[in-house]
């Protein structure tokens, strides 16, 4: 029967097939015609993938049973000795062959068309394992749309009505899935969001297909209303079962857990605080123990310590899908936790925004933070509040459409704040070289001063760790020099606004203060490691290094408290860390308890060196005295 069915279906749907072929020819001509214009080619390819193929699949599926309704063909088929589900399946597979042929033809078109060849990354239909998202669009989406439309086609012989209904079903499904996965996304459940999408995307068409077969098996085709009713009942049952299945999977396999992640880490000489998807943890350097402090969900949880307090951000729910940010403060031992402010209040000027990053003043009396996606996104992004929650004040930095913010630090008296920010690159800007700006904000008057601009990546400026007594040096950042066409390590004295540069041939790609604020280690674009002494005002060491993992340069190096430099060793994989002495000679190498292909972050806190395994988001620490590894998280 299957063979006869294929021939019959091809004959019946030949009109649609010709329509697809016509489309193929038109696209081919269009590609040739616009072969010089990359943008148009892009638009054409998108139209093909996102409009033409899906519409074709919908029409093909919707026409599935239309011929059976005419002249009583269904009665004829049902009077044959054949199980009704077989009829359904034979038809489905027959039409599927038409769909697959059309998709393949289009795939070949994009693969072989001379105009598209030079840009394989953009337009290639993933005949090979190239881009998963294109694979989904090209094959899976038409297939699912076709299945949905075909399943619905037993409801009516009016192809256009069925196609419309199927499209409607898909739109509703999309909205529902997008909303659901968005909320999961916002709660840090990234991989589960994707799983949800894929599972529901598959289960709903499957449910409709099953409902379609059940309807065929139970319904009186001469009574359209009853047929529709039976279909609706079955579809509801199957879709509810699918949702139930997904829920069971979620609970059973703990799929809807937040992805494991370590967000931010802040360390000082007493303790090491870090934020994860589970909440905030503290690793006490003296006791060598990890402790969970606060259970708040902490998307990109920011931490800042000063004095005996720790301030951090968390996530709250105000109702509906929207989450709100909160600023909380607690003692260093995690006790006495209080909410400073939140963005869920509609009256508050902070309403709806996210808080990051956060910095507490060195005396612990004030907290500065940036508000993103607030009610007025481009104005009053900088806010300062007292540590008791009072005195909330906003500052307009005068940078429209700002993108990246970094709080560099408070000024000596705590009266000014140093901030780094970039501006969003507008489409059409030739490249992203606009650079970042270093600003000083007077917290009393609200005055904003630009101290430097054309700061390059890493958009990173830092001040050394403040000590009680003084703070040496100034603000260090990497300045792009247009004339010399390289990145120059620059020091700015915030009081005098005097600048001092480190003069070396090549560009500097990263730097790191040592624990006393005395020296600066830096990496250059030629894989040289250097040390700059603040006291002497010059480069005291510079040396070529090899065999180290210099990816993610700003995180590639770290000072220990006893003035050694830690680097990741790269031998195919990263499996050990090395310690360099004052002469930048490798003094010791210690094997990591894991090995990873990825770059990992290193920190030093007290006598511990801490490294993150970015593959599974585990935190490991080693006691540098005993050389014992300890899994912190």
């Amino acid at each position, binding site marked *: 029967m299957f063979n*006869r069915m294929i021939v019959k279906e091809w004959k*019946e749907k030949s009109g649609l097939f010709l329509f697809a072929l016509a489309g193929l020819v038109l696209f081919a001509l269009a590609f040739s015609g616009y072969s010089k214009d990359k943008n148009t080619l892009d638009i054409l390819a998108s139209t093909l993938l996102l409009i033409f193929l899906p519409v074709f699949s919908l029409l093909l599926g919707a026409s599935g049973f239309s*011929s059976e309704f005419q*002249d009583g063909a269904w009665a004829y088929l049902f009077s*044959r*000795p*054949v199980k009704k589900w077989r009829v359904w399946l034979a038809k489905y597979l027959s039409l599927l062959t038409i769909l697959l042929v059309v998709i393949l033809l289009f795939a070949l078109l994009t693969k072989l068309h001379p105009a598209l060849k030079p840009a394989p990354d953009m337009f290639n239909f993933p005949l090979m394992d190239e881009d998963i998202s294109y694979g989904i669009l090209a094959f899976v989406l038409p297939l699912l749309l076709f299945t949905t439309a075909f399943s619905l086609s037993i409801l009516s012989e009016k192809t256009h009505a069925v196609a419309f209904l199927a499209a409607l079903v898909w739109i509703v499904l999309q909205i529902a899935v997008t909303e659901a996965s968005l909320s999961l996304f916002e709660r840090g459940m990234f991989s589960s969001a994707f799983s949800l999408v894929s599972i529901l995307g598959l289960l709903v068409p499957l449910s409709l297909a099953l409902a379609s077969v059940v309807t065929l*098996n139970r319904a009186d085709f001469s009574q359209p*209303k009853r047929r529709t009713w039976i279909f609706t009942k079955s579809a509801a049952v199957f879709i509810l079962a699918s949702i139930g299945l997904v829920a069971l999977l979620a609970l059973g396999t703990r799929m809807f857990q937040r992805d494991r992640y370590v967000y931010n880490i802040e360390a000082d000489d007493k303790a090491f605080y870090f934020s994860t998807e589970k909440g905030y943890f503290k690793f006490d350097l003296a006791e060598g123990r990890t402790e969970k402090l606060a259970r708040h969900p902490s998307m990109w949880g920011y931490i800042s310590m000063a004095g005996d307090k720790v301030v951090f951000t968390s996530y709250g729910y105000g109702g509906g899908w929207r989450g709100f940010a909160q600023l909380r403060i607690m003692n260093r031992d995690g006790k006495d936790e209080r909410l400073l402010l939140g963005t869920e209040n509609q009256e508050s000027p902070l309403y709806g925004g996210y808080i990051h990053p956060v910095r507490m003043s060195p005396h612990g009396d004030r907290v500065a933070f940036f508000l993103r996606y607030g009610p007025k996104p481009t104005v009053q992004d900088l806010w300062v509040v007292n540590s008791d929650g009072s005195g909330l004040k906003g500052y307009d930095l005068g940078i429209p459409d700002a993108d990246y913010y970094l709080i560099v630090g408070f000024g000596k008296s705590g009266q000014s704040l140093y901030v780094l920010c970039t501006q969003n690159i507008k489409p059409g800007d030739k490249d992203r070289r606009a650079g970042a700006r270093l600003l000083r904000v007077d917290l009393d008057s609200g005055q904003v001063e630009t101290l430097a601009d054309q700061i390059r990546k890493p958009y990173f400026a830092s001040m050394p760790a403040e000590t009680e007594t003084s703070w040496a040096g100034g603000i260090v950042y990497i300045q792009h020099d247009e004339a010399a066409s390289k990145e120059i390590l620059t020091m700015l004295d915030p009081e005098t606004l005097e600048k001092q540069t480190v003069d070396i041939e090549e560009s500097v790609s990263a730097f790191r203060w040592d624990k006393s604020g005395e020296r600066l280690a830096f990496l250059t674009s030629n894989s040289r490691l250097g040390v700059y002494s603040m006291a002497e005002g010059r480069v005291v060491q510079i040396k070529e290094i090899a065999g180290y993992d210099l990816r993610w340069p700003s995180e590639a190096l770290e000072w220990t408290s006893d003035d050694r430099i830690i680097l990741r060793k790269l031998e195919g994989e990263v499996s050990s860390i090395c310690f360099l002495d004052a002469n930048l000679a490798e003094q010791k190498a210690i094997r990591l308890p894991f090995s990873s292909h990825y770059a990992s972050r290193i920190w030093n806190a007290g006598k511990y060196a801490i490294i993150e395994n970015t593959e599974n988001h585990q935190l490991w620490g080693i006691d540098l005295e005993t050389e014992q590894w300890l899994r912190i998280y």
Partner: protein
Amino acid sequence: MSELLRTANLGKSFGRHLVFSNLNVKLSAGKVHGLLGLNGEGKTTLIRILLGVIPADTGSIYYKDALLSFRSAAYKEEVGYIPEDPFFFGGMRVGELLDFNAPFYRRWDGRRAEELLKRFSLDRRARIKTLSRGMKLRLEMAVALAARPALLVLDDPTSGLDVPTRHDFLQDIIRELADSGTTIFFSTHLVHELERIVDHLFILHRGRLILDEAYETVKNSIRRVRLAFPGDSPETLGVDGVLVETRDGPRREIVVYPWTDDKKKKIDGFSPTLFHVEPLTLEEIFRSFVAG
């Protein structure tokens, strides 16, 4: 087993309209069963249910004593079906239709199919669209008979055909019957031809089977009685089984089923001046039954 197919309490409604209920039909192997009924009273519906084209609301069907469900398909391999409006897939040729059907039926006899095509003067390559109604019917027959069915179900196949074509069609049925002992279930409202071949008669009227009897029995005992009475004709004759009664002055005509000697004597007792008993044709039998 002599009962090829039987239904038990079969019922069907379309929405609020009850088509029939509590239908118990038995088809005996090798016999010709005729289903009579007025148009639109459920003959086609019953046949569609038997063929599993639409489901019954209540009741069950047994084929060779095995209970069938709406999903059963195997029994259809032994059932040939000629529906009221013959359906053919658009653009198909004669040969293609045969080839389409052949794989469905285990007992398909290709040689027989060819013989039938020849006998019916059907060209394999002819497009079905171009055939006359009579030829289309013969094509349906060829498809149905090539599968060597044990049961042949026909739903008013000859309406719209001229007499010679109907005559030929009946002959084909008869030959099939003689050759293979096929059980026939024949619904029609063109009663005249059925009369010559029917063994068992069903009359479906107002949702019920008002007659379920061997045709011979009915034919032998249903009578039209023409009476005339002198003077005042009696109000009632006191005879039961009167299907139809018409009066015209002193004349009276009744159709009685069953006609017995007792009833004859009783009417005699009224001393009618005219007492004439005559048989009815199947057409008249049918009309008498559905008149009430």
